[in-house]
């Protein structure tokens, strides 16, 4: 084969998906957001589990964890995680629809993408009001 002979020069071909000229669409954005929210949620999970561990261990430890949890930083992480969990939740439901061969028309899929984004904001606001 040509590879490894030394005289072979690899041709510089553009790599997919051509990020500089890629036109983003609702379907791609909503898909990427699912992955991002799923991973970003770990911030909220780590803070929440640490806070629970502190509550289990001792009063001074809980005072520290609870101070972080109820600080502006803790509230930012928890509110962000709340939106992330609702977005990931709705996007997951959308995947269940797709698996059932529903909503695969491009127009419908784009509407469902908007539904995930707007719905997650609405559910976040609703949760903050209730809790």
């Amino acid at each position, binding site marked *: 084969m040509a590879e490894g002979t030394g005289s072979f020069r690899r041709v510089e071909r553009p790599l997919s998906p051509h990020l500089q000229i890629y036109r983003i669409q609702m379907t791609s954005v909503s898909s990427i957001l699912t992955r991002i929210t799923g991973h970003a949620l770990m911030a909220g999970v780590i803070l929440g589990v640490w806070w*629970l*561990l502190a509550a289990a261990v001792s009063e001074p430890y809980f005072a520290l964890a609870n101070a972080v949890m109820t600080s502006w930083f803790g509230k930012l992480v928890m509110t962000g995680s709340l939106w992330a969990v609702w977005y990931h939740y709705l996007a997951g439901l959308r995947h269940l629809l797709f698996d059932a061969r529903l909503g695969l028309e491009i127009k419908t899929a784009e509407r469902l993408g908007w539904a995930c984004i707007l719905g997650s904001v609405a559910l976040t606001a609703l949760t903050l009001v209730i809790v």
Partner: protein
Amino acid sequence: MQYITDRKRAVGAGAAHTGTAHHWFMTVSSVALAVMLPVWLYLFGAAIGGTRDQVVAAFANPFTAILTALVLVVSMRHFAKGSAVMVEDYAHGTARKAGLIFVSSLAAVIATTGLYALIRIAL
């Protein structure tokens, strides 16, 4: 000699012969989380901001304790397997192996720490 037919051996296996099991696990765990999370988010959110005694009392409740344990275990397996796909998508070679070990371990540490805290609180 195998008496199973070629078709029977192929049905449900998918092109890679392993991906369907992963996909089905994510489907099952996502449905479980979809059922549990609205209730759990309410219970967890209500517990934030309380004194230590109030927090301990909230998670000592059997329903809350069991639900929290389930959410922890299922969500951390869901995360580990979902994150593993991201590692497989973007990382190669040693970085891939290290990444797969890392996300799996992180999920295990978080789930076990949460369960330890729950056991100390609830029992």
